[in-house]
């Protein structure tokens, strides 16, 4: 497997990271080196092996459906890049 420059640009866009062509070329080499390392996995037959998602077999805990959080909007919005009237501001998304 080998990623092309266009592959790298597509992945970067999926990840919402802007890359210019020079950067994409640098990432292309590095990512291909990393995938070369990762390809070692393909030599192992894992038929019938149960995938392991987690270190411990866990079950999700349940709790009473009660309000446990207090309203801390002001503290949280104090660290936001742009807020107005209690709302987070982003560029216009609907024309």
């Amino acid at each position, binding site marked *: 497997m080998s990623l092309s420059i266009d592959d790298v640009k597509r992945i*970067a866009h999926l*990840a919402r990271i*802007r890359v210019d062509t020079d950067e994409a070329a640098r*990432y292309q080499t590095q990512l291909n*080196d990393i995938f*070369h390392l990762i390809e070692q996995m*393909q030599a192992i037959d894992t038929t019938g*092996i149960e995938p392991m998602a987690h270190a411990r077999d866990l079950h999700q805990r349940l709790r009473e459906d009660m309000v446990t959080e207090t309203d801390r909007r002001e503290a*949280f919005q104090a660290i936001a890049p742009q807020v107005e009237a209690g709302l*987070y501001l982003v560029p216009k998304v609907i024309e």
Partner: protein
Amino acid sequence: MLNLSLRQLAALLAEGKTSSVELCQDYLERIERLNPGLNAFITVDRARTLAEARAADQRRAQGDAGPLTGVPIAHKDIFCAEGWPTTCGSRMLANFVAPYDAHVIERCKAAGMPTLGKTNMDEFAMGSSNETSFFGPVKNPWDERAVPGGSSGGSAAAVAARMAPAATGTDTGGSIRQPAALCGITGLKPTYGLVSRYGMIAFASSLDQGGPMAASAEDCALLMNVLAGFDARDSTSLERPVEDYTRELDRPLSGLKIGLPQEYFGAGLAADAGRAVDAAIAEYRRLGAETVDISLPNSRLSVPVYYVLAPAEASSNLARYDGVRYGYRAPQYTDLTDMYERTRAEGLGDEVKRRIMIGTYVLSHGYYDAYYLQAQKLRRLIARDFAEAFRQCDVIMGPTAPTTAFDLGAKRADPVEMYLSDIYTIAVNLAGLPALSIPCGFGRDGRPVGLQLIGDYFSEARLLNIAHQYQQATDWHTMTPRGLE
């Protein structure tokens, strides 16, 4: 005073021979003197630390002191601490002041341990050398040409240079143990789920685990009594009875069975590091332990498996850095997508971007089975190897890292070479096991070597005992870097 153990510092406080304020002043002065050269701390806030110290002294005066009340600690800058900048080593969070405390911070506050500062780290804990930090690399106190290891490199350097008697770290693929080894200190990565991840900025959630870093195993045992505990706000926190992690420290080692995995002593291990590890194992034999050769046949796959699973989880966890609710936002953009893309391009460093891109790719349509699912299956084989090994031995020993600390800049241009420096630590995270690194000598270059002890699930007290007995018989853990005495 600066070379005393936590137990000795606590005793001085209890006897009234010093106060927390005096102690913190001593450490803060040392930080002021040494940190400009070592860069181990990102944030120091003298007034805040001394206020916490005064509160600890008051608490003691009121007869309300716990075992470590007044003993200060440094925190890796991955732990949210209310009112402290919490940067995670990233430009993305350079202006982020945490609005709440991580569970680990709450526990230390409840114990009355003042915060000495927030320590430098690889950006979002992604790195093995501390060179990916937005705030510049940390220097190794043993040799300023060398890296301290990573990602908890600031914590390791702070303890090694005695700028703090103890520090917190986190370990996703070796990030407590490898810097502990490279800086000549003791660091424990607990069983997954013992230390809450609440307020610990997420990298790879199924692998991340907080733990203690200090000079000795006894110090780490005292710290585990503070850090470990159930927390309902972390869905993977384990509900277990409260343990005293110091309870087994004095147990003799006669009859201990040490497993030596052949894969950890192969061609990849530098000769000088190997000699120090061999000498440590010989010391264990003198202390009454016996050794048995074991095999972890799938451990060689741990690096490729990790570089699928950890980036996959990271690509999801780091999607939250979008420039909307907190953190960096690019100053100029045309529309929403452009704002996201510029914010992340400018706010994140190269290594973080690489890992997000790997994760995005391995989770994308058509590649999931070949990468993510295959890696999860191999993860089970790696975990099974350990289960098999623990039928033959009580503890597994080997090197923590294949070499002593490498030079700053030596591996920065080659990500794959950097990844391989964690070859002996990553399998432990994939299995979720506890492991610690203790200093066991020096390489040809005078830089420290670490011995890794891997235990079965929940065997922390025993692991700390095994490390403590070695530290009773040897003095590697008491040595301090030249010029920093």
